[in-house]
C-alpha cells in the first residue's frame, strides 16, 4: 500500500512532532492536525473518576489569547471541523481544515497547550454538559456503557484499570479548579504530547510554523508513567448488571491480552482470532450462534475496550459481547463460545479464513488512510502508544504473517479459568414486548 512518508522532529521543550505529507496526485487541499497527550482515564486520581474526560472538555473553553467559545468559532469559521476524545491511555484533540487554515490550527493547539483559562464558571458549566453526555450515552440508554464501563470492574482489581472512565456524578461535582490546575501541570506538558500533521502540507514550511507556534511553550518536567500492570485472574470472575432500559439480556466476556507494545505479534494473533470468530457472515461465531443454533441476536469479538485494537498499553482486554433471548441463557452462550475457542485451539483456522481476514484488514486500512481525520489520529496514537507511527502502514504485512499456529495459540490462551463474565439483565418495567412499541 502507499506508505505516507513520515518526517519527525522533537522541539527543545520535548514536544514530539510527526509530519505525514500526502503527495498523491489529486489530493484535496485539506490538512489534519492532532495533539495526543499521554494521559487517559487510567491516570486520573482516586476520588476523581471521569476527570480526564472532564478536563478534555475544559481544554476547549478559552485561553490567554482567546475568550470562551472563540476556539470553536475560529476552527469552524476557517471551514474546519474539530473534536477531542479520552481513552484509557491518552487524550486526543483534532482538527481537519482547508490547508489555508493550517497556521491557524497550529496557533489554536499551541495556545491552549501554553495557557488555557481554567475557571470556576467553565468548570461548573462543563460538569453539567458531561452529566448530560453520560445520561445520553449510559443512564438513559439500553446497554449504555456495555461493555466498556461495566466489564473492567469484573476483570480488573486496581482502581486504575477497574473504575468508570466516564465518572460518577459525585466525583464530577466535587472536582475543583485547583484539581484542574494540578492535572494540567502534571500531564499537559509539551514533553508529554505528540503533534501530528497530515495531508496537503509542505514539510519545510510546516516545520517552521511548528517552531514558531509551539517553540516557546515552556518545557515542564514529565513524570515517569507508572505501570498499570496487574496479575491475570486466577479463576473465573463473575458479575451482574441490572439494566433498567434493556429489552433482552446480554453477556460480555473479558480476557487479558498479551502486552500490545511488548508482545505485538502475539497481540495481532488475537486481532486475527477475533476476525475469524465474528467478522462477516462466514465467520465461526456468526455461523454457529446467529444462523445455525440461533442463540443470539448478535455476537461480537474484538481486541480493546474502546472498539478498536492497538488503542491502549498493557493491560488490554479481549472482549466478547452478545445479546440473547431470555430462553437461551448466558451459560449456553458462553458454552458455545468455549466450544469454538476449543476447536480453534486444537486445529487453528483454515488457510482460507486467514486470507479473508488479511484481505479485509488491508481494505479496511486503505479506507481509514483515505480519510484525513482517521489517518491523523491513527498515526498520532501509534506514535504515542507504540512509539512508532509507521506501525499503521506495517499492519497489513504483519497481519498477513500471522499463522494458523499463532491463532491456535491465541485461542488456547483465552482460558475459562482466567476470564471475567458479566451478565446484563433487563430490570425495567418495560418488557420485551411492550418496550416503547406504542410510545
Amino acid at each position, binding site marked *: 500500500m*502507499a506508505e505516507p512518508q513520515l518526517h519527525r522532529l522533537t522541539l527543545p521543550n520535548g514536544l514530539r512532532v510527526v509530519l505525514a505529507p*500526502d503527495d498523491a496526485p*489529486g*489530493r484535496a487541499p*485539506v490538512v489534519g492536525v492532532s495533539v495526543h497527550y499521554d494521559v487517559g482515564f487510567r491516570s486520573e486520581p482516586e476520588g476523581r473518576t471521569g476527570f480526564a474526560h472532564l478536563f478534555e472538555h475544559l481544554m476547549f473553553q478559552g*485561553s*490567554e*489569547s482567546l475568550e470562551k*467559545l472563540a476556539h*470553536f*468559532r475560529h476552527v*469552524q*469559521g476557517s*471551514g474546519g471541523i474539530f473534536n477531542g476524545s479520552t481513552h484509557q491511555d491518552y487524550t486526543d484533540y483534532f482538527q*481537519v481544515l*482547508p*490547508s*489555508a*487554515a493550517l*497556521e*491557524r490550527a497550529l*496557533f489554536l493547539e499551541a*495556545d491552549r497547550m501554553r*495557557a488555557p483559562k481554567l475557571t470556576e464558571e467553565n468548570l461548573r*458549566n*462543563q*460538569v*453539567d*454538559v458531561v*452529566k*448530560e453526555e453520560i445520561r*445520553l450515552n449510559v*443512564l*438513559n*440508554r*439500553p446497554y449504555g456503557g456495555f461493555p466498556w464501563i461495566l466489564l473492567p470492574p469484573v476483570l480488573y482489581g486496581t482502581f486504575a484499570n477497574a473504575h468508570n472512565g466516564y465518572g460518577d456524578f459525585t466525583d464530577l461535582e466535587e472536582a475543583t479548579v*485547583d484539581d484542574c490546575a*494540578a492535572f494540567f*501541570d502534571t500531564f499537559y506538558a509539551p514533553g508529554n504530547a505528540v503533534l501530528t500533521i497530515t495531508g*496537503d502540507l509542505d514539510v519545510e514550511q510546516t516545520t517552521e510554523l511548528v517552531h514558531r507556534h509551539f517553540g*516557546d511553550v515552556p518545557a515542564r518536567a514529565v513524570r515517569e508513567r507508572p505501570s498499570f500492570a496487574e496479575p491475570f485472574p486466577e479463576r473465573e470472575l463473575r458479575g451482574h448488571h441490572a439494566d433498567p432500559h*434493556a*429489552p*433482552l439480556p446480554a453477556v460480555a466476556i473479558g480476557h487479558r491480552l498479551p502486552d500490545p507494545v511488548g508482545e505485538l505479534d502475539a497481540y495481532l494473533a488475537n486481532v486475527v482470532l477475533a476476525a475469524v470468530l465474528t467478522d*462477516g*457472515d*462466514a465467520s465461526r461465531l456468526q*455461523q454457529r450462534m446467529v*444462523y445455525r443454533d*440461533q442463540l443470539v*441476536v448478535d455476537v461480537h469479538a474484538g481486541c480493546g475496550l474502546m472498539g478498536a485494537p492497538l488503542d491502549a498499553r498493557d493491560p488490554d482486554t479481549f472482549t466478547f459481547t452478545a445479546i440473547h433471548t431470555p430462553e437461551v441463557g448466558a451459560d449456553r452462550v458462553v458454552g458455545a463460545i468455549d466450544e469454538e475457542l476449543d476447536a480453534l485451539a486444537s486445529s487453528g483456522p483454515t488457510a482460507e479464513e486467514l*486470507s479473508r481476514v488479511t484481505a479485509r484488514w488491508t*481494505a479496511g486500512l486503505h*479506507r481509514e488512510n*483515505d*480519510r*484525513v481525520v482517521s489517518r491523523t489520529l491513527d498515526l498520532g496514537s501509534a506514535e504515542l502508544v507504540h512509539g512508532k507511527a509507521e506501525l499503521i502502514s506495517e499492519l497489513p504485512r504483519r497481519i498477513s504473517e500471522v499463522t494458523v499456529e499463532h491463532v491456535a495459540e491465541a485461542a488456547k490462551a483465552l482460558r475459562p479459568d482466567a476470564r471475567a463474565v458479566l451478565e446484563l439483565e433487563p430490570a425495567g418495567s418495560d418488557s420485551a*414486548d411492550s418496550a*416503547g412499541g406504542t*410510545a
Partner: protein
Amino acid sequence: MTAAHRTAEEIGRTEAGPRPLPPLGEPRSSQPPATVDTVLGNGLRVVAARHGAVPMVELRLRIPFAGEDTMHPARAEVLAETLLTGTSTRDRVRFDTDLAAVGGDLQSVVTPEQLSITGDALADGLPTLLDVLADALTDAVYPDTEVAGEKDRLVERLAVARSQPRVIAREALQRHRYGDHPFVREVPEAENVARVDSAEVRTLHQESVLPRGSVLVLVGDFDPDTVVAQVERALSGWSSQNSAEKLPALPTLDGGDVQLVHREGAVQSQIRLSAQGLPRTDPGYAALQIANLTFGGYFSSRLVENIREDKGYTYGAHSAFEFTRDNGTILVDADTASEVTAAALWETRYELGRFALVPPTGTEIESARQYAIGSLLTSTASQTGLASQLASLAVLGLGMDWLAAHPDRLRQVTGEQIAEAARYYAPTAFTGVVVGDAEKLLPHLNDIGGVVVG
C-alpha cells in the same frame, strides 16, 4: 499529581501576553474528479467518479422502494435482510467468502423511501463486487430457512431498536407530523414481520427491485469510462420496463403544539422539533443552509452556545435538514435531563423567535459561509465521503456538476437572502414531540404552554 503545581490563574497567563490569531493563507481550489454520469439501456443511472489516493472502490446503489400496503414495511425489511443470503449459485457463506477475497463488503438497508445497497472492495476486486451484486439483483431466491431465521431475529432486534430513546422519539415525531403517510413506517411492526412468508418477499423483489429510476454511484481508484462499461456488462441481466416505486409527495408541514410522549424510567428527554424547509434543488437552498448553520447547524451556533455552552442543559443540540425527493424539512433536536427539559424547550423557542426576528450578523454569516464551503471540501476529500455525498444528491436528481458549483453558490448568498430564509425558523412554523418522564415534565411544560399530552 505534582504536589507543587501552579494555580489556575498562573497557568492562564504568560509573560508575553495574549497573541494575535494568524490570518488564513490563500485558499487552494481542487479540481472536481473526472466523472461519468449516464443512463444505461436498462434505465439505471450510473455515476462513476475517479477519486482518492488509495486502491479502493466504494459502491452505493439507491432503489426507490415505496409501498402503500400496510405489510410493505415488514416485507421490505425481510427482503433487505435476506437479499444477500442465497441465489442459485451462492449461499450466505459463499456471498461473504467471495466478497472477503477482494477485501469487500455489501450491505442492504431499507427505508420507506428506498432500498440502499452499500459496498466497498479493493479496486482490483471491482469485477467480483459487481458480479456478487448482479447475482443478488437478478437471482436472489430468498431461501425459506433464511427468511424464517431472519424473521425471528428481526422480531428481537425490533424490540432492541424500540428500546432506544432516539428510535422512540423518531417514531413519535414521524406520526405526529405525518399521520399515517407511508413515510412514517420506518420500523416495521413485529407482528407484521412474523406474518411475512418467503413467497411474498420473492414477489416484492420481482415487482420492486428495479433498475429504471434507480441510481448506482461508484467512487474510487479507476477510470470512470471503463467502469461504466464494466457495470453495463455486469448488470445487463437486470432489466424491467417498469420503474422503481417512488414515495408519494409529503404534505407541507404546518406548525402546531408539541406532543408530550411518556417514557417510563427516563432520566433524560428527547426534544424533537420540525418545520417545513426547502428542497435542495430550490434556488433559495444555499441561503437556508447558511441560515441553518447560524441557528443550530454547527457548534458555533446560537442554539448550541445558549443551551450547551451557556446553560449546560444538553450535550448536543442540532438543527439539520432532512431531504426527500422534491421536499426538505428542518429538524431541531436536543436531549436534556428531565429537570431542565422545559427550560431547554423554552430557550429553543426563544432562539427560534430571535432568529426569525433578528437576522444573523455579518460575522455570523461569514463564519457559517466558510464552514459550509470548508466542510464540503473536507467531507468529500475521501472516497467514502464523496460516494455518500454523490448518492444523496443523485436520489434528488443532482450530480457532480451541482456539487462542484455549490461553493460558488454559497459565496454569492447575500445577507438579505439569509434574513429572508431565517423566517422559516419562526416558532409558529414548528411542531414536534418531547419524549420523557411525563410526571416530572408536565408541570413545567404546562407552565410554558404549547404542549399537549400524547
